[in-house]
């Protein structure tokens, strides 16, 4: 089982699509709303160098943006 975290904001459209994609493929994930949690936002920026969402953390590896190909590979999702 992969440990998956989604860093997102409630209104970011690609975050909505990403979460929908994960749900569709039955991937359990922890959701971190960076608009409500400034500490998590800072931590995410420190770890990734990115000031943009969505960011996905899969077993400690970061994927920036809704990169369907890489996410599918890391989670063994067949498209």
């Amino acid at each position, binding site marked *: 089982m992969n440990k998956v975290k989604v860093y997102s904001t409630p*209104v*970011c*459209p690609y975050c909505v699509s990403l979460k929908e994609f994960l749900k569709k493929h039955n991937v359990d994930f922890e959701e971190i709303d960076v608009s409500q949690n400034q500490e998590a936002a800072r931590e995410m920026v420190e770890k990734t*160098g*990115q*000031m*943009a969402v969505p960011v996905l953390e899969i077993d400690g590896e970061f994927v920036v943006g809704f990169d369907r190909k890489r996410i599918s590979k890391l989670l063994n999702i067949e498209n």
Partner: protein
Amino acid sequence: MELYDLIIIGGGPAGVTAGIYAARKKLKTLLVTEDFIGQVGKTGQIDNYLGLPGISGIELMEKFKEHIKKFEIEIQEAEKVVRVKKEKEFFLIKTGSKKNFLTKSVIIATGRDPRPLEVPGEKEFIGQGVSYCSICDAPFFQDKAVAVIGGGNSGFEAALDLLKYAKRIFIFERSDKIIADEILQEEAKKEKKIEIHLNKEVKKIEGRGKVQSLLYHDLKTKKTFQVPIDGVFVQIGTIPATAFVKGLVEFNEADEIKVDFKTCQTSCPGIFAAGDVNDGKWKQIIIAAGEGARAALAVYKYLQNMN
């Protein structure tokens, strides 16, 4: 290869409406789209779409997507069309992942993409301070100074989205007047955090690892200034997403596809263009949806005459 009656390219209001109308006419239809987000999905709140006042852009897109999925229509999501080629009386659609589809007719409904600023530093710092989506990325600029480039509606809306987070917001506009709607101007002018700068042309975005400053040229005094800044939100309008049909259909001087508005047909019979991608005036969701319906019905007629 399977032959479709119609391939719709784009999943915005024009493409989705065309899909619904085509499905109701029992056309063998495929809709190809990168996503169901587009310009609408990146808009915070929409107050001028009939029947759904105050809905958020992404919610409206979710509704469109649910609606089209009620019909028998094939959808290829996460596919970008890179080329449309004429093959005798049919058309070949090629995607970025090297899929090919053959069809009797095409509706182009790809809308528009954000216009890049095209200054040094812009591409390098995307995601590291440069953003085209204020509602997505505003929370990363808590207590920071940000610049919004562009004094139109989307520039002012971005500045207002940033209000909750940023400590200072500069709006840089190249021309000598603001073109945003009065209602937005009034709102922005009430806020002390927002400073509006006219006649300023942004020249360069600078930093190490992330955005740290911005160089701009004052077009009146002809002097160049540097301002420390943590974020740059580019909101200088949009360009039509038409590169994949260049040379196949006629464009106007703004690279919009020329159509006959009676049918939305382009200069190439069998190819239709609906919504923001064509040369119609006033880019609105409701207009795009209306044109999607018109184009699909025109396709139905075109196919009848073809057989």
